[in-house]
């Protein structure tokens, strides 16, 4: 494990506006952490505080246990890929990549060797003498990556690195970024508002809202066990069922949700009001299960891999994602359908204000 970054109560406010509210976060050395949140959630502010461009109003920042809160950005020297890449337009690709080495006073021979290695790393050999504007978006992105990695920084910071690219290219570069992370073995801290990108790239994801870290964990853990309504809603889609706990058994609880009594795994107190998050893909149409609900199809959209169906039910509209291949039914608008889900399909979440 190379390096561990730690945020202790790191906060930033501008006058009365609190951009980041005391963030505590530990990043394991060599891991890929993503700060995920909607715009204005404070994720970029946290990244800028890590990079040293924004001075925190409170809290400390530790690198390998060493306090770096007061260090200016050039002394931290973390690699950074900026939004829009920030390549120097007056320098060639090779000069851009050599820049961090040049300001460190490295000799010409050493510089050239490292630039070649970096170009090789991002598969841009043969582009060394081009100017940035002669490159495609994806190539520019790779130059930015090479430039950020060429001086062997302890930490690589990525500010929405893929947001300027089209969907197909984005998927390709996600793959590349992940491979690159494995190859260089450095700690990566990424900022994005794209939940798919966060899930596919990261070892760990921290979800932010209104300047606060709501939950941090491995992508699967976050998706399967969202702590709050916001997390469940922001990572993928979810149905929310509100009910009162009527029965607490050794394994199951029974939740009274409107006219329905639902069986669920989980711990809750008797008489407590709970909010259940139920993923649309965990509901099966026209099948039997622990919980069964009747509904009428309000709308159905074919998405290639599956159908996105909304059904009107006694407890409100319910979204269902049904794989299209060998589906039990072809949902038609107006049709009455039975849906079912297992007792372990839903998670009890805290009800914060969902954005």
């Amino acid at each position, binding site marked *: 494990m190379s390096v561990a970054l730690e945020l202790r109560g790191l906060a930033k406010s501008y006058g009365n506006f609190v951009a980041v509210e005391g963030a505590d976060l530990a990043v394991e050395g060599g891991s890929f952490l993503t700060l995920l949140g909607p715009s204005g959630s404070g994720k970029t502010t946290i990244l800028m505080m890590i*990079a*040293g*461009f924004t001075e925190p109003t409170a809290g400390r920042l530790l690198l390998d246990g060493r306090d770096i809160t007061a260090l*200016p*950005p*050039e002394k931290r*020297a*973390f*690699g*950074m890929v*900026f*939004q*829009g*890449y*920030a*390549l*120097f*337009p*007056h320098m060639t690709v090779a000069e851009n990549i050599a*820049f*961090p080495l*040049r*300001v*460190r006073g490295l000799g010409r021979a050493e510089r050239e060797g490292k630039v070649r290695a970096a170009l090789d790393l991002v598969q841009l050999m043969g582009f060394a003498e081009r*100017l*940035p*504007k002669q490159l495609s978006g994806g190539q*520019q992105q790779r130059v930015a990556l090479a*430039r*950020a990695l060429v*001086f062997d920084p302890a930490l690589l910071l990525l500010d929405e690195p893929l947001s300027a690219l089209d969907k197909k290219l984005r998927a390709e570069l996600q793959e590349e970024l992940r491979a690159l992370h494995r190859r260089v073995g450095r700690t990566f801290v990424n900022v994005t508002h794209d939940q798919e990108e966060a899930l596919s790239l990261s070892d760990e994801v921290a979800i932010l809202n209104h300047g606060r870290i709501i939950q941090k964990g491995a992508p699967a853990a976050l998706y399967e066990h969202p702590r709050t309504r916001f997390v469940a809603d922001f990572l993928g889609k979810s149905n929310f069922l509100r009910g009162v706990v009527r029965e607490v058994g050794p394994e199951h609880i029974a939740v009274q949700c409107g006219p329905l009594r639902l069986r669920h795994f989980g711990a809750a107190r008797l008489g407590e009001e709970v909010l259940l998050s139920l993923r649309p893909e965990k509901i099966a149409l026209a099948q039997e299960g622990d919980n069964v609900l009747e509904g009428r199809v309000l709308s159905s959209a074919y998405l290639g891999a599956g159908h996105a169906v909304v059904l009107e039910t006694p407890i409100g509209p319910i979204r269902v994602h049904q794989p299209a291949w060998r589906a039990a039914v072809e949902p038609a608008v107006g049709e009455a359908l039975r849906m079912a889900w297992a007792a372990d399909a839903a998670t009890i979440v805290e009800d914060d204000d969902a954005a």
Partner: protein
Amino acid sequence: MRRDVVAKLRQDGGWYALLLPAFLLLSVFYVTPILQVLAISFLEPEPGFSNYQRIATNLSVQRVIITTLRICTITTLLALLLGYALSYTITLAGERARRWWLLCVLVPLWISVLVRAFAWVTLLRRQGLINQSLQGAGLITEPLELVWNEFGIIVGMVHYMVPYAVLPMLASMREIEPRLLAAARGMGASRAQVFARVFLPLSMPGVVAAGVLVFIFSLGFYITPAILGGGKTLMVAEWISLQILDLIRWGLGTMMATLLVVTILVTLAVFSRVVNMRRLFGGGA
């Protein structure tokens, strides 16, 4: 294709007719006199190249050309230096401070060049504010010769030219993405390195534009050198007026005027190349 153009011309013909008065005005009152100046320079006092031969032979002609070029070069360099510092400060200033700075830069432009030249005379002359304060402080015993020489001319011209240097450089600097500067610092560059390797090269197009603008303006300066030079240091414009109005040597005067116009046109031709360079750099990544 061709027919389209013709049809379009016919269609737009009415609009082109509206340009005619302005076109006539320009040709009659602007182009014709310039052509006449050109003609006189070859025809007076006798037809031939005699006036132009004096560039090579006449010492006084050579001296005025060299003096003018020297003063203009020094003025341009100083105006660029001061203007660059000002533009840099304005670029990095906050929104509010920037507006005040700009106002301070622009206000001198609204004050008559005559008023400014005489203001400098009162400051710089032997009994002026500067000499008296220096003498009062005991720093000098004899007053310094600050005016009615090249020094005075350069002070007045630089003062006049700084706003013209600031405006193109400021425009160029404001096009530089702040993110590039942050990126450079993030990669370990000190403030000085960020300036030398990123900011300065990216602001060069503005520096070149400002330099050409100030140099061309300076070449034809008349009032400021006439007042602050006190008739002892002659620049081209004053020399031309002297030849034509006082010595009635039209041939020589128009020759120098033609030389001035040609110099400006050549400078502009070089300048247009540099503008292409700027496009080559593009407006960022």
